[in-house]
Every structure is written in C-alpha cells, then in structure tokens.
C-alpha cells in the first residue's frame, strides 16, 4: 500500500506517467477495495490537486463502505474539497470512479438532509467532468435533483441554458429533462419547461418508463398553461410505445385537457375538485391550479382580439369572474406581465384594449433577429454535419442496406433530405 502511495506521488507529473499510473491503479483496485477501512491515513499523504487520479482511486475505495450519519459529515467535507481542487485531465481518465464518488457524495448530502451543501461542488464536478458544454454527464440529473431539493432553481437554470447533444445514458437524459422541466416550471419559464418535457415524451424508448409517464402529465399541464391547448396526438416521431401507452396511463390529465378546451371554467373547476386526490397524489395539484387560473387569462386575451373597449362588468361576465373588482385585478396583472396591452379607465369602469406597440423598427429588434438568424445557421450547420457523418457511418449503412435489400439504380440519386434555410 505504501508502495502504491509513493508510486502515485512519483507518477503524477507528466501525461505519460499518469497513463502508466492508471494501469497500476486498475490492477490495485481490488486490493484497495478490500482494505477500504484503513485508507484514511494514506489519503492525508496525497495532495488532491497534484495526485488527483490516485486520490480518486483511494477515495472511491474508501467511500465504498456503508456510511453512518457522523461519518458522512466528515466525508462530505473531504469529497467537496477534492472536487474543488482536483485536476480535470486526470479525473477524466477514470470517469466511472469519479461519477460513483460524486453519486455517493450526493447520497451523503441527502442523508444529512442538507442538499444545499451539495449544489456548488456538484456544479464544479460537472464542469470538470464534461468534455464540452454539449455533453450530458451522469452528474447532470444529480445536480438538478440537488437544486430542486434545496430550491436553488436559479443555479439549476444556468445548466439548462446550455444545449445538450451528446448523451451517455438515455436514463440520464430522461431524468435531466424531467428535473429540468420542474426547475423551469418553478421559475415560470414554461416555454423552456415545455421543450424539456417534450424531449422526454418524444425520446426514443424501447419500453414505457415511469419518468416518461410523469413527464407526460406535467407536459399536458404545462402546455395548457403556456399554449392554452393540448394537441391530441403526439408528433409522429415519438416512439410507438409512447404513442400507444402514455395516454392510457394519464387519463385524468387527458380529460382535464378536454374539459379545458371546452372553455367553461365552472366545468373545469368541478372536474378538478372531483379528481383532486389523483392530482394531489401525483404532486401536480399546484400545476393543475395554475392551469385553471390560466384559463381566465386565456379568455381575457381572447377578448382583446374582439373588443376595443369593454366594461369591467362585461369582462367579469364573459370570463365568469365574480365581480368587476376581480376582473380589474386580473387585467391589471396581465398588463403588468406584458400579456395584454390595455388601459383601465377607473372612472367609467372601462378597459381599453390597445394593439401591440412593437413596431419592429428598433435597433434592438434587428439585433435580436440577427442573433436569431446566426443561431439558426449554426444549428442547421450542425445538422448538416451530423447528416453527413450519419450517411458515412458504416453501422448505419449496413442497417439501411439490410432494410432495403435490392438497390435500384434510382436509389443512387436519392440525396437525403436536408433543412436549408
């Protein structure tokens, strides 16, 4: 064991040394695990910043055993320190070890019921582990879970802003998008939430899974809140398993959406009241209530299409609010949120609806459009690259060839369809 420590100390300098050290450590891994209880003193002899790889192996073996409460407190400290000081190049040689250490770290933080302590180190861990910002690591969902539990939605959003393309494990993606959706909902960023949940629901899946089912429930509610409607069919690129099963598994939500589309608030409210238990047991009651109240907004918004002026009393009647006062509060709130453009004349109790003042003439708007175009160009370039890669991929070609046995001469003209802007 002492020999191993000296070797670690000696071989942590150059890249080639570290590679040979990794081989050594791999061989010693079993014996390290066997002696996991006596590893603590050796850890002190190593410097996490210099000897990251060796430290990682020792730490992984050391934390493998069962943990008690008081034990956890000290090891959380140790792991957090390691995460913040370790060298990214070295730990990327043993990502499995690093991931399992971080997962244990999360477990211990949860054991101590202090999820907040885990948030910052976990973010650092993600940054060190991922090769590029497009890479979804196994730590992403863990990080979002900690954010959710500690209610640090803002920190979570920073990760969600980045586009994810590379995925190691589908399960990571499902959880990442599901938690991400919940964080976005918490921040009322319904568009983002919808996008994330949409990814879960339409992701290719061989069998139906619980994450997708829960995501679908939230997906229905969020699209009611955000779009005021729920499309009856999933897009055709969704997996057939999802198309067949999801609806049956979320019946109360589908019925809620149907009731919503009828536009009658009273019906919707009685339906929600009757099925309160179901929504509550799914922990979705809050969202359901938001969906119900979004209906008032939707109805008021519809009035702006039809009317130039309308008295508060009439608004209250048409939207089925109890009093003009309540209608005024709703309208006021909506004006404040920029959802409608209107002025309230309190003397006559009239609301005057205005047109959208945006004239699309300002520099900011042009800049926005320009940046949007740039962004789309990069995205579509990426799509083209991907398409080319795919059409050169021997695996894909073999599969495509198998499915289409006989090649006609015409097939060679068949250029794959591309998005062109």
């Amino acid at each position, binding site marked *: 064991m002492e020999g191993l420590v000296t070797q670690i100390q000696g071989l942590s300098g150059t890249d080639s040394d570290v590679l040979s050290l990794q081989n050594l450590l791999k061989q010693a891994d079993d014996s390290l695990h066997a002696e996991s209880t006596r590893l603590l003193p050796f850890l002190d002899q190593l410097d996490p910043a210099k000897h990251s790889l060796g430290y990682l192996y020792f730490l992984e073996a050391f934390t493998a055993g069962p943990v008690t409460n008081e034990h956890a407190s000290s090891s959380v400290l140790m792991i957090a320190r390691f995460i913040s000081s370790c060298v990214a190049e070295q730990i990327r040689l043993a990502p499995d070890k690093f991931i399992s250490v971080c997962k244990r770290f999360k477990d211990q933080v949860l054991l101590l019921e202090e999820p907040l302590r885990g948030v910052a180190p976990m973010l650092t861990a993600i940054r060190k582990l991922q090769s590029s910002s497009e890479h979804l690591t196994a730590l992403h969902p863990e990080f979002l879970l900690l954010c959710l539990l500690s209610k640090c939605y803002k920190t979570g959003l920073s990760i969600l802003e980045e586009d994810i393309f590379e995925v190691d494990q589908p399960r990571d993606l499902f959880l990442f998008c599901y938690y991400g959706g919940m964080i976005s909902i918490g921040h009322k960023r319904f568009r983002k939430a919808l996008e994330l949940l949409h990814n879960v629901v339409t992701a290719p899946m061989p069998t139906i899974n619980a994450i997708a089912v829960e995501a679908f429930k939230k997906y229905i509610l969020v699209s009611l809140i955000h779009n005021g409607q729920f499309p009856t069919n999933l897009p055709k690129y969704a997996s057939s398993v999802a198309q067949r099963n999801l609806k049956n598994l979320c019946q109360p939500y589908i019925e809620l959406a149907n009731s919503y589309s009828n536009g009658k608030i009273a019906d919707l409210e009685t339906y929600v009241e009757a099925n309160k238990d179901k929504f509550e047991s799914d922990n979705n009651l809050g969202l359901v209530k938001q969906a119900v109240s979004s209906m008032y907004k939707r109805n008021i918004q519809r009035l702006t299409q039809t*009317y130039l002026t309308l008295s508060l009393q009439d608004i209250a009647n048409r939207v089925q609010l109890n009093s003009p006062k309540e209608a005024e509060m709703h309208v006021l709130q909506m004006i404040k949120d920029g959802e409608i453009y209107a002025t309230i004349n309190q003397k006559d109790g009239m609301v005057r609806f205005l047109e959208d003042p945006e004239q699309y003439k300002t520099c900011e708007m042009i800049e926005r459009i320009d940046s949007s175009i740039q962004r789309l160009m990069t995205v579509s370039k990426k799509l083209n690259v991907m398409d080319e890669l795919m059409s050169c991929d021997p695996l894909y070609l073999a599969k495509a060839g198998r499915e289409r046995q006989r090649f006609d001469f015409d097939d060679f003209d068949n250029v794959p369809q591309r998005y062109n802007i």
Partner: protein
Amino acid sequence: MDGEEDTSNPMMEANGTGGVDEAPLSSTSTRKNRPIISGEPLDIEAYAGLYTGRTKIKRLIFIASRCDNPAMQLEALRMAYDEIKKGENTQLYREVVQKIEGRLGPNYEMDAAWCSTIERKDEQRKEKLESELNAYRTNLIKESIRMGYNDFGDFYYAHGALGDAFKSYIRTRDYCTTSKHIIQMCLNAILVSIEMVQFSNVTSYVSRAELTPEALDPPTVAKLCCASGLAHLEAKKYKLAARKFLEVGPELGNSYSEVIAPQDVATYGGLCALASFDRTELKASIFIDNINFRDFLELVPEVRELINDFYSSHYASCLEYLGNLKPNLMLDIHLYNHVETLYDQIRNKALIQYTLPFVSVDMRMMADAFKTSVSGLEKELEALITDNQIQARIDSHNKILYARHADQRNATFQRVLQTGNEFDQDVRAMLLRANLLKRDCNLKASRKV
C-alpha cells in the same frame, strides 16, 4: 294582414328607442307595404299536388309526423290514405291506418278485405313474373331478361320492398344493350336510393349515367342534376348542391314529380346558394347568366324576393321572409335537417356583408337592420370575430364596430420570429433524438460483436 301589423309594431318601437337617423327608418317603412306571403300554414292539398307516386305518400306521412297541428296532421294522413289505396303497398297502408287511429271516421278504418285481396293478387303476379323470368332466362334473350328484371323491380317498388327493388334494377345492368337502357337502369336505381335515403348510391349512379357515350336528352340531364343536388345537400356540401340545382334546366317541368318538384329546385338551390356563395358568384349565377333558374324562382316568389333582398342588402326583410318560410321548410322531407345550419350561415353571411364596406359601423343601426337587440348583435359579432370571419373590433362602450386592418409587416415579423424559434427547437430536439438512436444502434451492434 293582422299578423303583419303585429310584427311591424315592435319594430317601430325599437326604432324609436334606438334613436337612429332617418335613412334606415324610411327604407324599412317602404318595405313594410310589400305583402309578405306564406306566413300562413302550409296548404297540404296544393303541396301534395306537386308530387306523384311514393314520394307523395312519404312526404305526407312525414308532414303528419313532424307537424303539431292536429287538423293538419289528420289532413295529411287522410290524403296519404287515399293515395295508398290507389296503390298496392299494404305494409305502408297498415302503418298509416295505425297512425290515423280511427280519428277520421269509419271510412278510414282498417280495410282487411282490401289488404287480403291485394296480397292475394300480388302472390299470383309474383309467381307469374317469376315463371316469365325463368322462361326468358332459359331462352337467353337479353332484352327479355332485362324487361323481366325491370318488371320485378317495379313490382317490389310498388310494394315498398325497396332493397329488393334496388337489387332487381341493378341486375338489369348485365343485360343493357344501349345507353338508353343504362340510363333507365340508373334512373331507377337513383329513385330507389333516394327513397332509401342512401345518397352515396345516388352519387355513384348519377356519375355512371353521365358517363354514357351518347348525349343525354335535356329532361334526363335535369333529373340527374336534381338527384346529385339532393345527394350533395344530404352530405352538407351546400355549395356543390347549389351549383347542381342552379344547373337544372327548364325541361324538368313536372317530369320528375316522383322525386322533386320545380318549386323545390328553386327553394333548395336558392337557400344553398345564399348560404355558400359569395357576392360575385351569387350575382353571376342567379341574376345574370342563369335565366333558367330565374324561371324556377318565379315559381316560389318568397325565395325570389328574399334573394333579391339579400343581394340589395335589405337584410331585415330578407330575414323576415326567411322566418316566415321556416315552419314550412321544417316540414320538407329533404330540407328539414339542414334548415338550421343554412339559416345560420345565411345570417352570418348577411352580418359579414353588412360590415364589409365600412370602416366603422354604429351597432345600434346595425341591430335595427337585423331586427335584434344591440347586446344580441354584439354576441353574434363576437362569435364571428373570434372565428376570424369579420376583421373588426367592437367598441363596447360606444357601441361601434371598427374594422381592423391587419398590419402585414408586423405580422410577418412576428411569424418570422416564431418560425425561427420553432425551427431552432425542432432541430435541437431532432439532433438529440438522433444521438440517442445512434447510441442505441451502436450498443446493439457492439453487443452482437
């Protein structure tokens, strides 16, 4: 005339309270002098006189079942009874007798003796027809076999066995030698299908008849037009139905009275055209080019008047005519199901056309023109605006409707931004899914190796 006084009074009051300019008032008062016909209940005798054969009986029974005026009901049943007695349909006879329930005195009781003689005669006739047909079939004379089947069809039709009649008529197809025969076969099939309310058959036989190589004679063309018009009407394709009815030639006369009367052509065609045509089309098809249809319209002056009113934007009197016609139309065997939809569409069209030329419309004046209250009008307009059929917004405070001009430029910008966002989202989701699939594929391959 009393009824007319009653309807005009509330209108005057509405005008008084509305406090509108002179113009609409004077226009309505001139119109008031015109007699409004057809407010009175349907004259069944005259109505039934338009039809012959089975449809007459059917229409009478239909009126009896839909009408809540007992005197009219009995009148219709009595005439149906008389008509059936002339024929051989014992089954229908029993139905009608049951419906009469002895309310028409001893002359209209169940006549069992008549029934049994008819039925006995039928048996004999059927046997005779069968033996004849068999003889023809052994001799293999095409024309005779066709005649035999045709006779069978007529026989079944007279007895109300419509399904069998249809089959027999269809069987003649294999023995048709000239296009005249084919047309006869098609017309028979169409007649039976209309009775059976199977309008998909009607359409297919109409097109088959039109495909015959020889030129059709005008009455047949008119008949086929009527039949396909009815089929389109039944399928709620009002525009197509209107076109077909407008095409019907004057040769129709009373030649198709076993299905439709020329008056019906005018009513069906006029209402469907009002409901579905736009203004230019309406003008072109009814007022200028189509002298034929004008002749038909002369038969039903109410419909002619209401179309004229609609076209010259006298909506109040147009709607009044429509309202007066309604109870009678509800008793029409083909139209009753569509009256509500057609009326709604006509009313909506009238509302839309009224608003079209103006930048702003005083809703009080508009409500007068449509004989409705301002709040009722507001509701209707709201529905139409929500449906995007009227581009306008309501100033509910001053009760004025302002036309709204869509700003193309802003709308384009909005759409561009939205499309961009959607594209962005779609592509990213697509890349993600592709990566997942690729990974899945690689995994499977590596497992195999």
